[in-house]
């Protein structure tokens, strides 16, 4: 797959590649214990967050299954970096991808995450030709579950006690959407209609 044309925009946000200068901003949310469990790497201090940032800066295209494409989410009004959204390519023949996102707590409850995730899905289906995108979230993570449901993803799985996490039984939700479902989702039309050229 080729490198996509970036950045991409929504009304209030810019989705762009990570840059070296993002270290302080990434630090403010990666190092939080509540965020830690959702990351692929340890990012508890400046050295670890720098390594994480270096890894994310390399996630700018999908070459083979297992690769991740990550964009930083920036608020247009003040250029603040408020979070990140990723697509991980899972299965080449079946064109499957996993959606992940992390947003800094101080910017929550304003619809930014939904806005960014919807844009990323539209982008992922068009650019990478995915057939299906899924997202996994802890059943206790009500915010993420509400977001995924709210943007029109279907609840496909609710696993109970299927794994231990830090000594406690885990409960996990899977959401998914197919390319043709996303194309006819009213939420996409609304987003396109409101998009600033």
């Amino acid at each position, binding site marked *: 797959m080729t490198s996509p044309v970036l950045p991409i925009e929504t009304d209030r946000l810019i989705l762009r590649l990570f840059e070296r200068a993002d270290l302080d901003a990434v630090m403010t949310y990666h190092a939080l214990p509540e965020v830690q469990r959702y990351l692929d790497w340890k990012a508890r201090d400046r050295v670890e967050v720098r390594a994480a940032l270096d890894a994310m800066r390399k996630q700018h295209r999908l070459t083979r299954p297992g690769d991740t494409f990550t964009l930083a989410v920036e608020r247009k009004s003040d250029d603040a970096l408020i979070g990140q959204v990723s697509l991980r390519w899972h*299965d080449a*023949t*079946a064109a*499957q991808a996993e959606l992940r996102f992390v947003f800094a707590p101080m910017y929550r409850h304003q619809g930014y995450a939904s806005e960014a995730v919807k844009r990323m899905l539209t982008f992922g289906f068009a650019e990478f030709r995915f*057939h*299906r995108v*899924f997202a996994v979230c802890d059943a206790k993570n009500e915010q993420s579950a509400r977001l995924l449901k709210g943007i029109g993803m*279907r609840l*496909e*799985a*609710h*696993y*109970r*006690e*299927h*794994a*231990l996490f830090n000594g406690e*039984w885990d409960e996990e939700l*899977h959401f*998914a959407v*197919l390319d043709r479902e996303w194309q006819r989702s009213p939420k996409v039309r609304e987003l396109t209609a409101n998009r600033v050229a």
Partner: protein
Amino acid sequence: MRPSPELPIETERLTLRPFTRGDVDAVFTYRQREDVARYLFDGPMTRESCAEAVQARVRQVSLAEEDDRITLAVERRDGGELIGEVTTIWRSVADRQGEVGYIFHPDFQHKGYATEAVRALISMSFAELDLHRIFARCDTRNVASFQLMERLGMRREAHFREHKLIKGTWDDQYIYAILQSEWSAA
């Protein structure tokens, strides 16, 4: 730990026992069939692949490590015919998770044999393998299979749509599961 259940398992009408090399012909009668293979990952078996499969099953009587399986032949006590096979796969040792699977000869359907056999397999798996949760998967079109799981009190935990390509077509899959606590309470 090396869980090895006491075998065979007897139910009212069935015996669940280890496979022997002499079972190849009986297994071949149903594994060669197109209708049996429809919802399995493998296509219909040749006699050779069937012989290999039975050979592998002969040793599947205890669990030593993750993804090991216990596979048992299901035999009618009255008549002695081999009517199918059931298996428990150790999917996670640390999380005590198991998966069950079953394949039955269509000629013996609609008599409750499969339900009776899988119920005994699950009871054994919770009791003797100390699993915490057991799940099973099936194609969403395989009505007989998911109705069996529902009869056993398993909950539908997942409905994956077009999540894989299997034999060139989109796979829609159900996952059913039951916890040890739920099984004991039922």
